[in-house]
Structures are given as structure tokens and as C-alpha cells.
């Protein structure tokens, strides 16, 4: 049960509001949590100080700070683009510089609770207005300074390309000539800042290539794994493959004699806090015990693990297995009627489903399941740290960088941490969990202490996990097993909806707030939990809809078919018939609840894009499926066309995506790329991705047992994307495109073959990509 505690810690960690380093974490998990976070009284805005973000160079070029972690979602471009557009400079005049972790950025953009984080598709909605404020304040300061220098009223001055112009006299002043006076003006109150009319944007909404692309295509060091401070050593870290296991002993003296190995030591678990001692502020910082091997190259450290003999105390978790969890779930089903009735985010009961089933003309029942999956970003977990003179410096790929992650294991204060944020080779939620930052900081401290005793200088150390380490020690997407039952009246109208969920772990896979809730008079969702379940689970791109969308949008499809209706039109009809009074649309859509009109909008758009109404003309073995999802404040609908042959060879012929994330796409190129990538990830979930547990450890070891989608599986021009411009505030795009990709494919398989897919992945059921 050790890991269960750890898992609960993570849960509370995700809800914690104040982060070391001045950040605030808002709703990484679910819309209800987003909402509850939003309800708190917003803290007072601080004055905006653009000089923290903008450096003006004598040649009238500009360095703009990118303050959030970049893992491939394009935020290193997007936020500086917002500043540059409001500042009224040309993108070609801009250089981008990644910031360190420092609370001054939140303070000086006027939003002291907005952190430097990547998670929950929050970076755009949280930072869009503050970044506009930074750019606009800087422009206003330039104008105010120019008014004095040109002796002209501010109202007669215009800006363009980093130049202030007094049109009447034809006189001009470059930002460079004004900068010294302008950017030393006192910070500006948010209420005094006048923003551009979005119709005047010149950079936002265009296609702006990634700022790091030239370095990436020429192989220049760009990623966390490439960080290489002088004198650095490399560490491998062996942890118990059984979750929660502890080191009893290890042959570290033998390991120290191996080629290239400089140090080898057992890393003990965190010491229990003395009775009565206060926990340090911020989220708990824990690490798993293990054996660290430090060598002159990582290969030497990793190779030495072959000779490593560790006696582990595996604990009771070794008795757990996927087969055991499933046996429990099958037993839980008989107790569904006794499950807690409703209330809270994990269950819901409206009307009387049992009574409605008795009156129903037709009842549909089905069992669905989706497995645990791993994130598997392509860059294996790593981090680099240097403990020296009582301080620690860290180079981290984390999505939620935290000074405490380095300070606590190194035994120093957060003020003793220098925290560099380095580009990560993929995130997908994996780098919300930062064991590697914590482990490397502990190893760096122990290494420095051991070297000091031997009279050796302190050196930096890079901890790199192997791919197998990452597969074995992830925070997995939680699994779920769903017992569905739906009642239809004689006209095929949905009158009762029941879902009993056998859930794994204490993370949300319960569709208690999910469509069709609010559109059916009798709705009951409840859960029974498997336990003990000691596998760490967490947020993978688009939690929790990345699994829920598959089961809900597939079962809705079954209901439509049972009703004898067009599945797309059936969804539209349901969305047009709210039960009770629908909530008024909330135009500031970040954190707002489900908006049926926006869901209908993406469904109607994708129907038109995909020639949906002519799908009956498709040849035998080819079919189109539809699905939509409200995820992380965005609305995405797919139609997918697949072909399936008699040997279950499956091909995605084409996918059409309609996306509504509000009024302003920041970077049109990256936005399209993210949607296409979300679909491709959905194909991996669909066909191949599953983590299974045996003996308390993960069975799958590497990509050969966990195949990602490959290029040949994707037809040319396979994903066509359309963004709907709506008058809602702009929200994020890292997550929403993934969830409905999966049910759109499975519903297309049904349309092509008449076989309903109720379990993932498909590879286990004899399917393969052509």
C-alpha cells in the first residue's frame, strides 16, 4: 500500500494551489476541478512591467522572453507571438529567449498566480491576456516616451514594425531610440492598458515556424538530454520493478570496480519527518529508493546495471496483477446496484433510471474497457543537476518545474536553487511527474558529499532513464471497465442512461459530468473501485476524456444504431434537447461547462467537411464513423473513414476534424500540427497501447511491445483540419484533439463491418494496420 500513499500525495499535489517558485496550478485534471479552482476569489493583479519580458537592442531588434516549458506544444513560439503582436513589432525582428523558473514573470505580467507550467491546455487561456498586456504596455510606454521626444500628442502617434510615427510631421522614432526611457517607466496598472483590436493582429493567426527548428534540423544541442556542463558525469538509477519496493542490499562495491564507473551507492528513501515537525511548504517531494551508478559515460553506467545484484523487499504489491484486477471487476458488477448513488465529481444520479428501463421500448446493454497506458515520450526521462557550495543548479525538462523538487532532496532551501527550463522531447503529461528532477537532485547531493570526503571537487551529474525504466516507472493513464445500459422509448429517444464503472486507482475515469448528462432525464453513473491497486496513475494528454471519450462516444453510437438513426444526427438531436434549463453560455470559456451549441457547431462542420450524408455510397468494407468531445475547454469532432478487410487489416483512409477553441488561433501552423498529432496518437491508443501488470510490475519493456503509430499507417493528407472561429475566449489545444479520435475510428469500424469495438487495444483482437 506504500504506493497508494504516494498516489494520493500526487492527487493532492495536483490540487495544491501555491507552488514553490511562485506558480499556481490550475485544474490539470477535469472540468469540474477547473471550475472549482476558478471559483476562488482571484488575487489582485500586479502592475505590468514589460522590461522583464522585452529587451530592446540598438539595431531595433527585440529579445522576448518565453516563460513556459516547451515540450513540443509550441508555447515557446506562441506566448512571445502574443507579446510581439501587441508590441507592434515584426516577427523577423524578434529573437526568443527561454526564461528560468522565477516568480518575477508571473508578478511582472500582472497575474501573480499564473505559473510557468505546461499542463491541462492551460498555458494559452491563462497567459493570453497577460501576454497581451505585456506587449501593449510596452507599446504604450514607447508612445508616451515618443510623445515627449517628438513633442507631439500621443493621440497623433502610431506604431508599426518597432517604429513610432507622427504622421502629420512625418517624424519617426525607433523603439531602440526610446527604449531606455520607455522601459524604465514605472509598471503599468492592468486597468490602464489598452489592447489592440484583434482584427489588427499581424502575427497571431498566421503560420509561424517553431523558433527552435533551425537548431533541431541541424542537430544543435536543444534538449534536456543534451545539457552538458563541464566535467559532467552520467548516472543510471535502478529502482525496484515492483511498485513501492525497497532496497535491502546491493553489491555496490563490485559495481565500483567496473569500467568507467566512478561511484555507486544506495539511495535511501526520504527519512520520515520527526514527530511534530511541520511539512515543508508546497507539494510533497518524495523519491523511490534505489541504486545509483555514476560513470564517465551513460553507457558505462547503464552497462554496469547488468552486473548489479540488488536484494529487494518487494512488499505486498508483488501479489497484484492485471488478471487479479479484472477478476475483481467482474465481481464488482453484481454489486452495481449497491454502489453509492450520486453526488460529487465521481458519481451522478438524476431521475430514476431503473423505473425508466421498465418503461423503455428498447434496452441496450454493453461492456466497454480501456487499459492502463504509458506516456512514452520519445526523449527518455532525464535531468541534470550540480550541487556545489550549499546550492543546487538544475536543468530540467519538467512540465511543472518546482524549486522544491531540487531543494528538498538536496537538503537546501528553495532560494538556493537555480532552475533552468530546457526543451523536452515530448511531454503528453509525463513530465508533470518529476521523479527524475527529484532523483537527480538527491544523487547530485550524495555524489557531492561522497566526492568531498575523498577530496574530489563537486561535478554536475546527468541522470538518464532507459526506455525500460520509463515504461516500468510511469504514472499510467488509469484504466476503466464500464457496464452500460441505455433505455429508448418507442421513437428511439434516449430516456435512461446508466454506467457503472469498475475503476482502477484514484484518478478520474468516471464520466459523471459527461454528455449525455443534461440531455437525458434519467442518468446514473457510479463506480466500484478495485483494490488494493498500487500502480501509480496520472494525467496523460487529455485526462480523463482520453479514455472516457472512447467508451461514451462508442456507446452513444450503439444507442443511435439501436434507435435506427444516423449517429451524427442522433447526437445533434440529443444536444438540441437539454433536460431542464440549459446554463447560459459563458463567453469566457476557460473553465466553463459544456456548451451544447459549440458541440453542435463542430458536429455540423465535420458533417459538411466529410460528405457524411453520402456515406451510404461507400464500398463494402469501408465506413465512416463520428465522435465529438468537449475536452479541456475545447470542442473537437471527427469523422473518420476506414477500410477493413476480412483478415481484420485496418486502414484509416481519411479523417476530418472540426475544432472550436474560440476566437483566436495563436499559431495556425502549430495548431494544425497539434490536431494531426492528436489523431496520430489516437491511432496508437486504438491499435497497440496497453500496459499490463504481473507480479506487481509492468510487463511491457520497450517500443517493440508498445508500438506507436508509424508513418506507413497514415495515408497522405489523412487528417484534414478546420478551425471554427467563434466568439469565445481562446483556449488551449494540447489536449482536445486526442480523445474523440479513438471512438471516431472505432465507430467507423462498426460502419464498415458491423462489428462493435468495445475494448482496447485492437491488436489484442486480431486487428492490424495494413
Amino acid at each position, binding site marked *: 500500500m506504500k504506493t497508494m500513499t504516494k498516489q494520493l500525495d500526487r492527487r493532492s499535489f495536483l490540487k495544491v494551489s501555491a507552488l514553490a517558485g511562485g506558480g499556481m496550478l490550475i485544474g490539470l485534471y477535469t472540468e469540474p476541478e477547473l471550475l472549482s479552482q476558478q471559483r476562488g476569489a482571484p488575487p489582485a493583479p500586479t502592475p505590468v512591467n514589460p522590461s522583464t519580458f522585452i529587451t530592446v537592442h540598438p539595431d531595433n531588434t527585440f529579445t522576448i522572453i518565453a516563460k513556459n516549458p516547451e515540450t513540443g506544444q509550441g508555447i515557446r513560439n506562441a506566448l512571445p507571438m502574443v507579446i510581439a503582436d501587441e508590441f507592434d513589432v515584426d516577427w523577423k525582428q524578434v529573437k526568443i529567449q527561454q526564461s528560468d523558473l522565477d516568480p518575477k514573470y508571473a508578478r511582472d505580467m500582472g497575474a501573480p498566480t499564473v505559473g510557468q507550467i505546461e499542463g491541462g491546455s492551460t498555458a494559452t487561456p491563462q497567459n493570453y491576456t497577460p501576454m497581451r498586456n505585456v506587449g501593449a504596455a510596452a507599446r504604450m510606454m514607447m508612445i508616451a516616451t515618443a510623445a515627449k521626444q517628438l513633442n507631439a500628442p500621443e493621440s497623433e502617434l502610431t506604431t508599426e514594425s518597432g517604429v513610432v510615427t507622427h504622421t502629420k510631421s512625418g517624424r519617426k522614432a525607433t523603439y531602440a531610440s526610446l527604449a531606455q526611457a520607455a522601459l524604465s517607466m514605472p509598471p503599468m496598472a492592468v486597468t490602464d492598458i489598452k489592447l489592440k483590436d484583434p482584427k489588427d493582429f499581424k502575427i497571431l493567426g498566421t503560420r509561424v515556424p517553431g523558433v527552435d*527548428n533551425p537548431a533541431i534540423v541541424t*542537430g544543435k544541442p536543444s534538449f534536456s538530454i543534451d545539457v552538458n556542463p563541464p566535467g559532467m558525469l552520467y548516472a543510471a538509477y535502478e529502482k525496484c520493478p515492483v511498485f513501492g519496493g525497497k532496497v535491502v542490499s546491493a553489491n555496490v562495491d563490485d559495481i565500483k570496480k567496473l569500467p568507467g564507473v566512478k561511484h555507486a551507492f544506495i539511495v535511501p528513501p526520504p527519512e520520515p519527518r520527526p514527530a511534530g515537525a511541520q511539512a515543508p511548504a508546497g507539494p510533497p517531494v518524495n523519491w523511490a529508493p534505489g541504486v545509483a551508478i555514476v560513470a564517465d559515460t551513460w*553507457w558505462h553506467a547503464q552497462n554496469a546495471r547488468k552486473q548489479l545484484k540488488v536484494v529487494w523487499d518487494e512488499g505486498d504489491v508483488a501479489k497484484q496483477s492485471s488478471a487479479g484486477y479484472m477478476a475483481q471487476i467482474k465481481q464488482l458488477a453484481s454489486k452495481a446496484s449497491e454502489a453509492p448513488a450520486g453526488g460529487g465529481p465521481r458519481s451522478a444520479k438524476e431521475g430514476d433510471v431503473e423505473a425508466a428501463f421498465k418503461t423503455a421500448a428498447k434496452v441496450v446493454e454493453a461492456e466497454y474497457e480501456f487499459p492502463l497506458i504509458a506516456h512514452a515520450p*520519445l526523449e527518455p526521462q532525464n535531468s541534470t543537476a550540480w550541487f556545489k557550495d550549499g546550492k543546487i543548479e538544475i536543468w530540467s525538462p519538467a512540465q511543472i518545474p518546482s524549486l522544491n523538487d531540487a531543494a528538498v532532496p538536496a537538503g537546501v532551501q528553495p532560494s538556493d536553487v537555480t532552475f533552468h527550463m530546457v526543451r523536452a522531447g515530448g511531454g503528453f503529461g509525463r513530465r508533470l511527474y518529476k521523479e527524475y528532477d527529484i532523483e537527480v537532485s538527491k544523487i547530485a547531493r550524495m555524489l557531492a558529499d561522497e566526492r568531498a570526503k575523498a577530496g574530489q571537487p563537486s561535478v554536475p551529474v546527468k541522470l538518464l532513464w532507459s526506455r525500460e525504466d520509463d515504461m516500468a516507472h510511469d504514472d499510467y493513464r488509469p484504466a476503466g471497465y464500464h457496464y452500460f445500459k441505455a433505455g429508448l422509448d418507442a421513437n428511439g429517444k434516449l430516456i435512461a442512461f446508466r454506467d457503472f464503472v469498475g475503476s482502477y486507482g484514484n484518478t478520474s475515469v468516471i464520466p459523471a459530468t459527461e454528455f449525455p448528462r443534461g440531455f437525458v432525464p434519467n442518468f446514473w453513473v457510479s463506480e466500484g473501485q478495485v483494490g488494493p491497486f498500487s500502480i501509480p496513475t496520472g494525467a496523460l494528454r487529455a485526462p480523463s476524456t482520453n479514455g472516457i471519450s472512447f467508451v461514451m462516444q462508442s456507446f452513444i453510437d450503439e444507442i443511435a444504431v439501436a434507435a435506427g438513426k444516423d449517429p451524427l444526427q442522433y447526437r445533434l438531436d440529443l444536444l438540441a434537447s437539454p433536460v431542464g434549463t440549459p446554463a447560459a453560455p459563458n463567453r469566457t470559456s476557460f473553465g466553463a461547462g459544456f456548451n451544447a451549441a459549440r458541440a453542435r457547431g463542430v458536429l455540423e462542420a465535420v458533417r459538411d467537411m466529410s460528405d457524411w450524408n453520402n456515406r451510404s455510397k461507400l464500398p463494402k468494407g469501408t465506413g465512416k464513423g463520428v465522435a465529438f468531445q468537449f475536452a479541456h475547454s475545447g470542442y473537437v469532432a471527427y469523422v473518420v473513414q476506414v477500410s477493413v478487410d476480412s483478415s481484420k487489416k485496418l486502414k484509416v483512409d481519411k479523417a476530418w476534424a472540426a475544432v472550436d477553441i474560440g476566437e483566436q488561433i495563436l499559431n495556425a501552423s502549430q495548431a494544425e500540427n497539434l490536431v494531426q498529432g492528436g489523431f496520430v496518437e489516437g491511432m496508437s491508443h486504438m491499435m497497440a497501447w496497453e500496459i499490463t501488470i504481473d507480479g506487481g510490475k509492468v510487463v511491457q519493456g520497450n*517500443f517493440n511491445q508498445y508500438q506507436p503509430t508509424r*508513418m506507413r499507417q497514415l495515408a497522405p493528407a489523412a487528417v484534414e483540419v478546420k478551425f471554427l472561429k467563434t466568439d469565445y475566449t481562446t483556449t488551449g489545444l494540447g489536449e482536445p484533439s486526442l480523445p474523440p479520435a479513438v471512438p471516431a475510428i472505432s465507430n467507423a469500424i462498426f460502419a464498415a463491418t458491423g462489428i462493435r469495438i468495445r475494448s482496447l487495444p485492437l491488436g489484442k483482437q486480431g486487428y492490424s494496420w495494413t
Partner: protein
Amino acid sequence: MPYTLKINGQSKTVDVPAEMPLLWVLRDVLNIKGTKFGCGIGACGACTVQLNGRAVRACQTQVSTVGNQEVKTIEGLSSDGSHPLQKAWLTLDVPQCGYCQAGQIMSAAALLARTPKPTDADIDSAMTGNVCRCGTYLRIREAIHLAANGGRKA
């Protein structure tokens, strides 16, 4: 044991065990970081380099087997980022996280060297060993065609 390697046109001598993979010789001994580690079993293609123009996985290539062959890494593809594939990658803004892209480009460069005008099927066949976890395959394929067409869209 000392090995003299020809890497990107330069001669480099390293003293490493015979079985050390070329990937780690490049990354940790020679500090040539463009070639990436993804899986260590030849299943992802992030470590793709060329040996005498042939795309190989550096994580599966023991240093003792390299001999006199010319090793080319992403850093040696061009001196200034002017290889048609590098230009095409920039034109189409291919990367998301970017971690796989050096390997993708090295596989694509080997393909174009032997098949200057590849079909979609040629590309799929040559590129199937290179994983892009972010899913930029549509742009990768388009960029290879773009480079093959001298930078003009077909």
C-alpha cells in the same frame, strides 16, 4: 581500446570498449549530441546515422564494427543547414517536440541519395523505422517530397 573513426569528414580517435554503441561514442565521448537516444533496441530510429550513406541505428552499431566506413550524423548533413531536407523541414514547420527529427532526416537523406524521386510507398518503406511520438508524419512525408522536388511543391 583505441578506434579511429571518420565522422562528418573528420578523423576522431576514441579509447572505448569494442562493444560500446556508436550512439554513446558520439554523444558522451565525442560530445556530438545531435544523434538521439530513444529506445536502445533499434525500435524507434531516433539514433539514425549513416554509414557509407546507409541509414543505420547507432544504438545497435558497436564501435568495433564501424571500421573505415564514413559516419555521417545530422551535424554533417550540411555545413549550414542548407541540405534540401533541412530546408524543406523549415519550410513546412515539421517539428513538434523535435526529438525524432534528426533521425527522420538522416533516414530520409539516405532514401533520397538512392531514390531521388521517391513515391509515397518508397517513403513509407524507408521511414517506417522512425517513430514520431508527436505524430508529424504527414509533414515529414510532405517535406521529403518537397526536398525531392527541389523545394517546389509537387
